[in-house]
C-alpha cells in the first residue's frame, strides 16, 4: 500500500453546507473527494502562474542551429 498521508482540515459549518449543496449532481460521493478536486484545481492554476522557464541564450542558439539544419526553422 502507498504511504498515504491524509489529514483533516476544519472548515466552517455553513461553508460545509454550501459545499454539500454544490456537490449535488456532480458524481462525487464524498465531501473530501470534492474538496480535494477543487483544491487541486485552484493550486494548479496558482502554480502555473508561479513557474518560469528559461534556457540560456547559448543553449537556445545551439538548439536553433540544429532546428535550422533539420529544416524546422528557416
Amino acid at each position: 500500500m502507498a504511504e498515504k498521508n491524509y489529514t483533516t482540515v476544519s472548515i466552517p459549518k455553513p461553508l460545509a453546507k454550501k459545499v454539500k449543496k454544490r456537490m449535488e449532481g456532480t458524481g462525487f460521493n464524498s465531501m473530501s473527494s470534492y474538496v480535494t478536486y477543487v483544491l487541486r484545481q485552484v493550486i494548479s492554476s496558482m502554480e502555473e502562474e508561479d513557474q518560469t522557464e528559461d534556457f540560456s541564450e547559448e543553449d537556445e542558439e545551439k538548439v536553433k542551429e540544429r532546428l535550422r539544419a533539420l529544416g524546422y526553422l528557416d
Partner: protein
Amino acid sequence: MSKPHGGTLVNQIASDKKSERLKEEAQEMKNIKLDSGLRKDVQNIANGVYSPLTGFLKRNDFDWVLEESRLSDDTPWTLPIVLDITKQRRDELSEGEEICLETENGKPFATLDIEELYGFDKKRMAREIYGTEDEDHPGVQRTMNMNDHLVGGDIVQFKENSTDFEKFHLTPKETRILFKEKGWRSIVGFQTRNVPHMGHEYVQKTALSFVDGIFINPIIGKKKPGDYRDEVILDAYDTLMGEYYLKDRAVMSILEAEMRYAGPKEAIFHAIMRKNFGCTHFIVGRDHAGVGDYYGPYEAQDIFNKFPDLDMTPVHFKSFTYCEKCGGAVDGHICPHDDEHRENFSGTKMRNMFKDGKTPPEHMMRPEVAETVLEHDEKFVKEE
C-alpha cells in the same frame, strides 16, 4: 505554452565532460542490458519527455501510481515507469550502488543510481493499469512476462541519443524553443501510429483552427504485425504536411516509446508527454490507446475529468465519417444525413487495399499520401 509537468523540464543528459568520465567509470560497473522499450524509457526520462521523473520509480511512487494515478507528491501520473530484473540479478546488486545501463546492442549508454530494489505483484499491476488480468490483453501479457523484481533510482544518460530517425527526433527542449520561435502560445498535440487518412486530416485541421499550431507526434516503437512500418508512417506524414499544411502552423517529430494499450490511463500519459513537449491541448479520439473491447469508446475522454490539475485541455472527438452528400469528413454534430450516405474511415479496409497493391479512393486518402505508401516495398510489420 504549457509549463513542463511537475514544474521543471528534466534534463538527465550528462555534459560532454561528465559523459566521458561516466563512460570510463561504467567499464568497472555491473550492468543491465535493456530491451528497446526500456532503452526508450531511459531516453524519455533523460530528455524530459517523462518530466518530472528523473529515474525509474521507487516503491512508494510505484504504489501511488497504481492506487491513485498520481506520484507520491500528488502530481498526476498514470503509468508506472519501472525497470524489472531477475531474482538472480537482484541478489547481485545492492542499494546505493551505481550500475551501467546498456542498449539492446550492448552499448553502454546510461548509469543508474540504485536507490531501491523491491518485489511487486504483477497481477495487481495489471489490474490497476489495464483494469483486467486477462492475458489476451497485450499490456497484461507484457506485465506478466516481466521479471519479478524492480530497481528504482535516478538515471544519467551519456551525451548521445540513440535514434534511427535523426531528422524527425526532437527533444522537449527543442520543441519548446521551436514553438517559442514560431510565436505559438497554444499548441495542440496529435498522437498517431497510422498513415494519415482524410479523417485524421479533418480532426487535425478542425483542432488547428482554434490554436496557433499543431504538433503531430507519431509514436515510433514496437508494433503489432500488420501495422504500418515506422518509415511508411513518417514518409506519409511528410508528404501530407508538405502538400496540405502550412509550414508555420504544423510541426511533426517522433515520440520513441512503446504502446501499452492501457486505454484511459494511457490517454492521460500521452497528454502528459505532449505537455512536456510544450502542448497546451491534446486530441483524444474514440477508444484512444485501446485494444479489443476492454474499454468503453469514450472512457479515454471521460478520465480527463478526474485530473483538474493536469493543465492540459483535452480536445475530444467523437466518431467521424465521410459523407458523400456533404462531400467531406463529418461528425454527428455537423451532418444531417443518414448512414446510407456515410462511409467509415476504415483503417483496416485501407490497409487491405494497400496489401492488394490498390490505391484507396481520394475521399478516404490523399492520392499523394497513398502514392508514398505504395512506393514502399515493405509497408507493414511482419510476424516475428
